[in-house]
Every structure is written in structure tokens, then in C-alpha cells.
């Protein structure tokens, strides 16, 4: 009995070492996911940021048509990388609404002129209020909202070219 017990502290030490080492070798995902997946879009209403394009409001969603809600900013470098993929999604018939975070009308207009304009609407979220209410923690992020106005999926970071087909399929499935 006693002979066996003498190994206990060593086993405990080895166990803790294993735990720490395994966590270090495979670090936890560093992104913060929204907890609003499978929940209705929170209530909000944003004015448009560029002339001639309407703003976004939560009442726009849930009309039977699934949509993407793209959280972007003209000052966001990965958003430029994402632009061609959003254009491809638009060409595939996906409706994309957008929220511009901490942005200015002239800067957004220049961003759209340079990178293309895939957006049906763009809301002006100057103080990140709507971004926070969506549980989004950065730009770019894209929410897929189904025909009943529920958030189905959150894509964190820029959409890559090889993710477009999957996203189109997901939008079609979210009817």
C-alpha cells in the first residue's frame, strides 16, 4: 500500500505536465463566437451610410428570404481581401446586407468604388452598438440569417475563395 502511494505525487505532477503541454501544443481557438446562433436577430435599426443606399433594420429580416449580414469597415484590410468573394456571392444571387463599423460616408464610398459594391443595404454603426448586440467581435464577420429571421451561422474573418460554394449552399438551405 505505502510503496504504491509514494508514486502518487509523481503521477499527479506528470498528469499536470501532460495537461499543460497538450494545451500548449494545441492552443484554444482564439476567436470569440457569438452565442446568438439559432436565435432571432436582435432588434436594431441603422440609417444608411452612403447616399442612395438604404440602412438596415432587424425588421428587414425574416421575410422568407435568407440573407447574409456582413459586418465590415472601410479601414479593415481583410475586408478588401474578402470583397471579390462577396461579389461572387452577389453574382450567385445571394442578398448581402451590411453594417459599416466606426466608419465615415466618404471612406465607405471610396471603399465601394475601389473594391466593388455587393451590398443591398449598408447601415451606419458608428459606435459598434449593433455589432455588440450581434455578439460580433471584429471585422469582417458574416452572419447567415434564415428566412424566419434567425441567425444560422457566423463566419469569422474574411470569406476565402474556397468557402464561397459552401456558403451559397448554406444560404439556399436556410430558406
Amino acid at each position: 500500500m505505502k510503496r504504491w502511494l509514494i508514486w502518487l505525487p509523481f503521477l499527479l505532477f506528470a498528469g499536470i505536465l501532460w495537461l499543460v503541454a497538450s494545451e500548449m501544443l494545441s492552443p484554444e481557438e482564439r476567436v470569440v463566437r457569438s452565442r446568438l446562433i439559432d436565435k432571432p436577430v436582435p432588434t436594431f435599426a441603422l440609417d444608411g451610410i452612403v447616399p442612395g443606399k438604404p440602412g438596415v433594420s432587424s425588421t428587414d429580416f425574416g421575410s422568407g428570404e435568407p440573407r447574409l449580414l456582413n459586418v465590415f469597415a472601410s479601414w479593415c484590410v481583410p475586408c478588401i481581401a474578402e470583397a471579390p468573394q462577396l461579389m461572387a456571392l452577389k453574382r450567385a444571387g445571394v442578398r448581402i446586407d451590411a453594417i459599416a463599423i466606426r466608419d465615415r460616408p466618404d471612406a465607405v464610398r471610396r471603399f465601394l468604388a475601389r473594391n466593388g459594391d455587393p451590398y443591398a443595404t449598408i447601415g451606419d454603426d458608428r459606435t459598434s452598438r449593433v455589432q455588440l448586440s450581434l455578439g460580433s467581435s471584429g471585422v469582417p464577420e458574416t452572419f447567415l440569417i434564415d428566412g424566419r429571421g434567425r441567425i444560422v451561422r457566423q463566419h469569422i474573418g474574411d470569406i476565402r475563395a474556397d468557402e464561397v460554394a459552401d456558403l451559397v449552399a448554406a444560404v439556399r438551405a436556410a430558406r
Partner: protein
Amino acid sequence: MTRWLPILAPMLIATASPPAAHWANTQLPDARQEAQAKALMETLRCLVCQGQSIADSDADMAADMRALVRERIAGGERPDQIRAWLVERYGDYVSYDPSFSALTAPLWLAPILLLVLGIVVARLSFRRKRR
């Protein structure tokens, strides 16, 4: 141009973004409310810097979260309501003051358990010495 992009990009980012929300870096006129807001801000995690509270962080998003906290406190909301609103969206991760649940129970109970264990071990070993 492409050679200078890594150097220019942070400058472009810094100049392009509009000024922070009014209540991000301005104290509330009511000292009691400001104290409440400050205490809450110190226990909310900055989501983009991770490891700093929103009270400590210079990140734009932390500024917007501070403005949100101050506006809601000024609007008469209780700090725990605001915390709950954020936890509902970002999970317990956003709070530095974890609530007691099945998942966080070890966090709260382990120190007590270890203390009790220490007392037991100490008593046993002292008793042995006395003999």
C-alpha cells in the same frame, strides 16, 4: 507601393477611423454612476485584446464597449443587467467575474478543497511529530 504597404497600413487604419464615441473616454457627470460603470468595466474582457479589461484597453472596440456601459448605467440599468446582456451574446468569456455554474464549480471549489486538504495533512503530520 506594395513594399510600403506593411508600414503604411497601420497609419491608414489610424487616420481613417472616426473619433471614439463620446462616453468612451468621458466620465459620467454623476460620480456614483461613474463609480458603478468603472467597477463594471474593470470586470469585462476586451474581446479583441483578450487579457485586458475594457477599462485598461486602448482598442477601438473596448472604447465602444465603455461607451455602451456608461450609456446604459446613465440610462438607469444595473451593472449585473449589462453584464448579463453581454454574456448572452459573448458567453461567460466576456466576464472576468465568472458566475457559479456546473462548468465553473471547480474554479470556485478547488481553493476551498485544497485548503481543507492542507489543514488535514498539516494536522496529521503535527500529530505524528508530537508522539
